[in-house]
């Protein structure tokens, strides 16, 4: 059908083009009339100028003579009269067939016949489904949102929607979806428990009052391990540390050793035991040596890998914003928000001039619920520059290192920034760190290996800084 339409269009166009061959009519070949009329205009202008007194009588006469001469010349040279064109159906046919064949041939060669239009409006659903099947949670969520809007009575949709939100870390939306699911499920314990957990996570892992009520109810009526865990956590967060560790211990005792929640529970028991300066084996008879060691360590809240290790690492090398954030998270998990805040504050100090990292820190702060007075990412200002001029050498070095480290961190996450790489290489080179400069240089070249123009730009600006290149 498609081809039929195209062929008809091509043939019609071919006939249109060939149309003059199918008619007979006479044609004025030279347009001598038009040429003469121009001279007539020129004559008029001479008369006008003469009338306005712009030219003298003699000049006007000379101009007239010249125009007459040219007009006569043109009339004699150009006048070849009319020509009659006769019909030439064969030529017409040849032209039409050529046009049709060439058009169809050319299109068949490069076209994508049969490829349908795909306007976006018609593709939304299909595209979302395709992406969702490929594992894209955002698309899945969008689809489920549509489904729940159309049919808000379907428990299954709400349930999967809530879990999907949880999977992408949007616990507030997750909690909301769980609430709908819980309504539909008639307070089924598993649903209620998931709902309360989502509320807790949405609240920065602090058990809110409503969730606590749900958890306590569930813990009373059912053997839901999650409810029991969170009841204990809520106790910890309410300063009832002994109650918390007892709760967790009870949960650990009644659970199979290989239950999926056991690592978490054990970790919390170990942390809490150390915090309370108690013997961990009193709670966990089969505690591993590592756990016992961790529980006996100093410091506030050792993680599985040891917050202490993080702290030591950061003391030696404070330019590692990821470690600072990890530390803050670990401290936050244990409920010591002041210490977490302190970690982030220190990170901020080290990265004062690196907006990208400041943004990351702010994100971490929000995730921990510390952002009541969140500092927005901040650009430098004239004061910074003035301050830089007055700093001691050490202070200045520290500031620069902070900025360079921030730049490096940003490029690690957003490497598509040629100017940034150039700046990084130059910064390292200026600071005399040839090794890092070389690494940055190589990374940048590898990053843009596919783009000759960018490569050239980078090389032009950084090659002079690279000895031996």
């Amino acid at each position: 059908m498609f081809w039929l339409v195209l062929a008809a269009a091509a043939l019609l166009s071919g006939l249109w083009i060939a149309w003059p061959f199918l008619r007979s009519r006479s044609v004025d070949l030279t347009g001598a009339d038009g040429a003469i009329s121009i001279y007539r205009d020129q004559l008029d202008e001479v008369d006008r100028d003469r009338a306005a007194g712009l030219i003298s009588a003699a000049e006007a006469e000379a101009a007239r003579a010249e125009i007459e001469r040219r007009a006569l010349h043109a009339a004699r040279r150009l006048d070849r009269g009319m020509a009659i064109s006769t019909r030439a159906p064969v030529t017409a046919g040849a032209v039409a067939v050529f046009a049709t064949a060439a058009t169809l041939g050319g299109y068949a060669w490069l076209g994508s016949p049969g490829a349908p239009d795909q306007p976006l409006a018609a593709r939304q659903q299909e595209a979302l489904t395709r992406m969702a099947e490929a594992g894209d949670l955002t698309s899945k969520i969008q689809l489920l949102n549509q489904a729940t809007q159309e049919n808000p009575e379907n428990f299954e949709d709400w349930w999967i929607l809530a879990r999907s939100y949880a999977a992408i870390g949007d616990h507030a939306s997750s909690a909301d979806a769980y609430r709908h699911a819980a309504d539909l499920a008639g307070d089924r314990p598993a649903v209620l428990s998931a709902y309360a957990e989502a509320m807790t996570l949405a609240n920065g892992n602090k058990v809110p009052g409503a969730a606590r009520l749900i958890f306590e109810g569930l813990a009373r009526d059912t053997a839901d391990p999650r409810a029991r865990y969170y009841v204990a956590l809520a106790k910890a967060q309410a300063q009832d540390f002994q109650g918390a560790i007892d709760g967790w211990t009870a949960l650990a005792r009644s659970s199979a050793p290989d239950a999926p929640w056991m690592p978490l529970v054990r970790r919390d028991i170990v942390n809490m035991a150390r915090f309370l300066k108690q013997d961990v084996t009193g709670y966990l008879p089969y505690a591993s040596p590592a756990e016992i060691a961790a529980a006996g360590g100093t410091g506030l809240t050792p993680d599985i890998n040891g917050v202490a290790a993080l702290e030591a690492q950061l003391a030696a090398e404070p330019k590692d914003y990821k470690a600072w954030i990890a530390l803050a998270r670990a401290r936050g998990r244990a409920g010591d928000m002041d210490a977490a805040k302190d970690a982030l504050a220190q990170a901020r100090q080290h990265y004062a001039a690196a907006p990208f990292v400041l943004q990351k820190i702010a994100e971490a702060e929000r995730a921990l619920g510390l952002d009541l007075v969140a500092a927005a990412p901040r650009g430098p200002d004239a004061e910074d520059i003035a301050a830089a001029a007055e700093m001691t050498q050490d202070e200045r070095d520290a500031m620069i290192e902070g900025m360079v480290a921030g730049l490096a961190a940003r490029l690690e996450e957003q490497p598509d920034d040629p100017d940034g790489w150039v700046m990084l290489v130059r910064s390292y080179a200026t600071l005399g760190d040839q090794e890092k400069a070389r690494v940055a240089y190589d990374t940048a070249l590898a990053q843009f290996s596919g783009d000759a123009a960018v490569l050239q730009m980078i090389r032009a600006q950084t090659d002079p800084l690279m000895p031996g290149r």
Partner: protein
Amino acid sequence: MRVLVLILMLLAPPAFALDPGEMFADPALEERARAIGRELRCLKCRNQSIFDSNAGIAKDLRVVVRERITAGDSDREILAYVQDRFGDYVLLKPPVAGHTYALWLTPVVLMLVGGLAFAAYMRRPRRAPEALSEADRAAAQALLKETP
């Protein structure tokens, strides 16, 4: 000083052609810095002077120019200093040298060629148009008289 340049470089988000932080307080010095800056090309950009460009590299160069001014260099010395380091490419007004003679001579040569061609055209021998015979004139007038 190098370090301060680096700080400036890292601090400034690449957004604005000129920012107040780098400017001289003295308007006369600032005027000089801009006059020089208009002669210098932002290396990454297309025919923009460093004073019109947002690029970081243009800013570096502006800072260098200001440094040289502070150091007491004359305008010529500053341009020579920059040219030394970045080559002819950085000068928006190319230097007059072996490889640019053709460029600088172009306007002169074109004017000369035009003038000579004009003179030749005006002095070429011209045939006086042959006068029309009376009969031809009458025919021509008849031709021209016919009004549509």
